[in-house]
């Protein structure tokens, strides 16, 4: 290095006493980085690397649940004969395990109806979670509607919104029949045309461009 520097400075021809002293020490003409600059950049890079080594796992730890999908959970809610076509039966089952009663949720279950152009022989489980802000809705038998007590959301017999602030029809749960028992499974949302999509939170629109503005979360199950 020092030899190079001397060559560049034209020191070869000059006697030793007349050689130019590099200033700052070690400088030679044409160098792109000073020694000080190299060490500054290197120590900052090392410090950044060390900080990233601590921060990234910690942040990942906190945001990991966004990408984690739990185990599919199915729970029997009663024999097939319990459910009819023209009205709902209220069932309570566990949606989230490990938090006791707080993890339970309510669904309204009925047999699929030919009058509503639904696939015969299936069961429909409508979530009681209002899609406005998540309050519990109630099925009012006399009106044949779901009504939310919080802000006056009203849904028809199928769960389609007919009044109030909700943004889409009521969510549903997947259903299946095992050994004569009706079982409810993961939650899914529907569009205004009753097409199933991945579960959305209350307050989020579904269908069309809204599928991009409120993207499906990796933590939800694919729709049936």
């Amino acid at each position, binding site marked *: 290095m020092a030899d190079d520097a001397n060559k560049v400075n034209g020191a070869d021809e000059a006697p030793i006493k007349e050689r130019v002293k590099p200033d700052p020490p070690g400088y030679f003409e044409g160098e792109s980085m000073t020694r000080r600059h190299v060490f500054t950049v290197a120590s900052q890079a090392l410090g950044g690397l060390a900080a990233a080594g601590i921060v990234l796992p910690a942040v990942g730890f906190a945001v990991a649940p966004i990408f984690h999908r739990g185990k599919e959970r199915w729970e029997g809610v009663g024999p097939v004969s319990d459910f009819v076509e023209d009205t709902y039966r209220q069932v309570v089952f566990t949606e989230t395990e490990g938090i006791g009663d707080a993890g339970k949720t309510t669904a309204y279950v009925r047999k699929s109806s030919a009058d509503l152009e639904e696939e015969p022989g299936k069961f429909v489980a409508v979530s009681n979670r209002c899609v406005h802000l*998540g309050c519990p809705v109630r099925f009012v038998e006399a009106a044949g509607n779901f009504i939310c007590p919080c802000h006056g959301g009203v849904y028809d017999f199928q769960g389609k919104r007919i009044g109030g602030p909700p943004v889409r029809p009521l969510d549903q749960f997947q259903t299946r029949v095992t050994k004569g028992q009706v079982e409810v499974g993961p939650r899914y949302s529907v569009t205004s045309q009753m097409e199933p999509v991945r579960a959305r*939170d*209350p307050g989020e629109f579904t269908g069309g461009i809204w599928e991009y503005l409120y993207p499906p*979360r990796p933590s939800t199950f694919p729709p049936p």
Partner: protein
Amino acid sequence: MPSFPKPKIPDAVIPPPLRKPAKPGSAGTPKGQAPSDLKESPERRSAGDKLLEVGKEAPIDALGWVDQRLAASGFLTGMLFRKVPKGTNWFYTLGSATLFAFIVQAITGVFLAMFYVPSATQAYSSIAHINNEVPFGQLVHGMHKWGASVMVILVFLHMGRTFFFGAYKYPRELNWVIGVVLLILTMTMAFTGYLLPFDQRSFWASIVGININGTGPVVGPYLSDFLRAGPELGATTLARFYAIHMLLVPGAIIALIGAHMYLVVKLGTTAPPWVKAERPKVAAPVSQLEAGANGNGRVNGDRAPGAPVDGEGNGAA
């Protein structure tokens, strides 16, 4: 403007290098003044008196010892005896009141944490235990619960005072920004703390609150999942809210309050908008007098009552 006598700063809080040297003939430091008393009445200085004198000096000596090493007295006297503008009134105490509310929340929160169990199955019963069985538990819990509302109200009043007095203007914009971040953090504290009792009210309020977060486009759904630590509100949600409420946000609030108060002391406070600036009374140039004569003959600095006052005078004192 009435002039008040300058507060006398006790010698004890001034580090020795900064103390004024004693004038010849006058009493110097306590150690130097002793002999004159002794000469007159040596018999009165019993051992008890000596002990008393040493006892009286001890706190000052201790303070001096600390300050010699900390060198904080200059900063403290500068901060505590700083000048405030004319017209400073009770509205200016809202910031300190908010700080006091925060300190109450911090202290009661620490003691609540000694009994609270952040578990979905035990949180509710631990709160019931605090309220019903722990001595003064209901009081401490009540102070924390009602103090939270008090703090939110005080924050808004403080913000309103700053806004209506125009105290957010240059050079205090950064302090306004820090204050807004503190407002958001205070709301975060209120939101996360609401879930902790884990009763019906907190459960449903948190669900509604998280769902409101979820209505933000594109990032909203992910934000909801982050807050809940999953697709549904569960046991991890409570632990997460507890950690945010106990560790994450309080640290940020304390740091930002420090920055907020540093800027208040550094930049000074503003005068209320109704206090007119005092302008030096100087003879107006002839040209201005002539211009003024066309109107009502007044010159600058001698306004008609109710005439608009420009903002120049509202700067820091």
